[in-house]
């Protein structure tokens, strides 16, 4: 069995009185595609955002490649990282957002090379070359110098995936990547994600696309009310769910 890239251990999260994550533990192996499904308000996105610390969990710990996210482990205790050290950690975790969040004042190329060049991960010429290569691989080679507003939603989301890839992340988090898209544009984004999965990228995907989960996911986690109700191999959870709540949800969305 391959090594664990992500370990979520007993993570809880509250916004004031409301507990949105209740003692969640999940492991994701290297190269695994894990889909998190469930009704809205279940805490799926919050869990995902805790993994790169866009949200801070109230208790519990998340490890990526054995390193605690947002903390440094010294003498048996966890010391909270400053913003710069946290940024360095985040550079290894890609994230793709529901609303793309491309930088509107930059061209497609500038969007992609911004982080690698600013963080000195690559020389500018190399970053441009690899950005062009990545764009070509998703059929957007001609959009290099366009602004995000000139692209369709599907094209923007594919650029957003390339932007995440340009940092050569250890894993990529997808937060409902197709939910903001017109139905006819969903396919092109899913196709890029399928290719990524085939290439062995570790992916955690919060999604409503049960079809994608069935086809691509290795494991599926079903969340309701801040808890993971059922986890397991995609085929098992989606074809013959053990829990009644999973069955109800699946019958509604399929």
């Amino acid at each position, binding site marked *: 069995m391959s090594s664990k890239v992500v370990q979520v251990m007993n993570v809880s999260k509250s916004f004031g009185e409301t507990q949105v994550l209740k003692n969640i533990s999940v492991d994701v192996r290297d190269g695994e595609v894990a889909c998190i499904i469930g009704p809205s308000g279940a805490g799926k996105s919050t869990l995902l955002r805790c993994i*790169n610390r*866009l949200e801070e969990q109230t208790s519990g710990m998340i490890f990526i490649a054995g390193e605690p996210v947002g903390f440094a482990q010294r003498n048996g205790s966890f010391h909270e990282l400053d*913003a*710069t050290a946290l*940024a*360095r*950690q*985040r*550079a*290894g*975790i*890609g*994230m793709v*957002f529901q*609303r793309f*969040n*491309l*930088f*509107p*004042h*930059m*061209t497609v190329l500038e969007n992609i090379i*911004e*982080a690698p060049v*600013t*963080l000195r991960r690559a020389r500018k010429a190399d970053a441009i070359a690899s950005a062009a290569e990545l764009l070509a691989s998703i059929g957007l080679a001609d959009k290099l110098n*366009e*602004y*995000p*507003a*000139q*692209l369709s939603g599907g094209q923007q989301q594919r650029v*957003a995936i390339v*932007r*995440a890839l340009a*940092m050569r992340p250890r894993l990529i988090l997808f937060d409902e990547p197709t939910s903001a898209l017109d139905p006819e544009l969903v396919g092109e984004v899913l196709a890029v994600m399928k290719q990524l999965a085939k290439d062995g990228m570790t992916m955690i995907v919060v999604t409503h696309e049960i079809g994608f989960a069935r086809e691509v996911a290795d494991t599926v986690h079903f969340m309701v009310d801040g808890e993971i109700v059922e986890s397991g191999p995609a085929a098992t959870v989606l074809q013959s769910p053990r829990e009644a709540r999973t069955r109800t949800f699946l019958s509604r969305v399929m």
Partner: protein
Amino acid sequence: MSDFPIVRRRHPWRWVATAILVLLAVMLAAKVASNPVFVFQAVADYLFEPRILSGVVVTLYVTCGSMAIGLVLGVVLAVMRVSDNPVINRAAQLFVWFFRGTPVLVQLIFWFNIGIIFPSITLSLPGGEVLFHLSTNSIMTPAVTALLGLGLNEGAYMSEIVRAGILSVDNGQREAAKALGLPPWKVLSRIVLPQALRVIVPPAGNQFVSLLKTSSLVSVIAAGDLLTQATRIYNENFHILELLVVASLWYLVLTTLANIGQYYIERRYSRGFVQSGRMTAFSRLRGFRGSSAGALPKGDRPT
């Protein structure tokens, strides 16, 4: 059958309004022209008088200088205002409260007389060795006072404009930048501020135009600006109105130039944002239709 002859609607009231306004303008012009006291030749004589021109230069550098101070200070204060640190946050709030809450004229006179309470500025080492010693009055010349007074005041106003700009940037932008691993300073300087500028530039341009005229307040400390010079001249020759007209003409020239400059800066910072095309009087004169999408290639507009 394919012919639909159309008779356009007429606008008789436009002609009536035009006639009335032209009549009023002619009456006013006749009244002024026939006035024996107002000397038109004086306006022409003094428009390019060296002292007036030097006043224009002083007004320009006082305005640009205090705007520069205001911009830098405004960004610093705005960033302090959006910071999580409560002490820094409160300090910025206090500054803005004070400088927006007192008249800039009072502030100018105050800075000009600061020498009364702090006659000298001395920097010395703990051992007593004096590094430098200066008399306050030798530093606080009218020009420096003008820059300081207007600059600090401008900073207070600009900080609110910059803060509004920062708040206008979608939080998703900040999150995307953070998720890519950009450190806080880069998130601000590369992602948030450039987008905030789009919102900041129009009111900042407004501030600049306003400052061009507010800078005339420094005539109370004889800073040598346009109004100071006009005042000096009419105190010699008593052509009060003529020199005020000269000064006003120059202020109009400067504010018009500022408006044109603002148009181009706005266009620069709305790259990538799609808005309907905007025309200014200037671009209309040149028959040029500009738009935020000016940076986008023609015929390739997003749908």
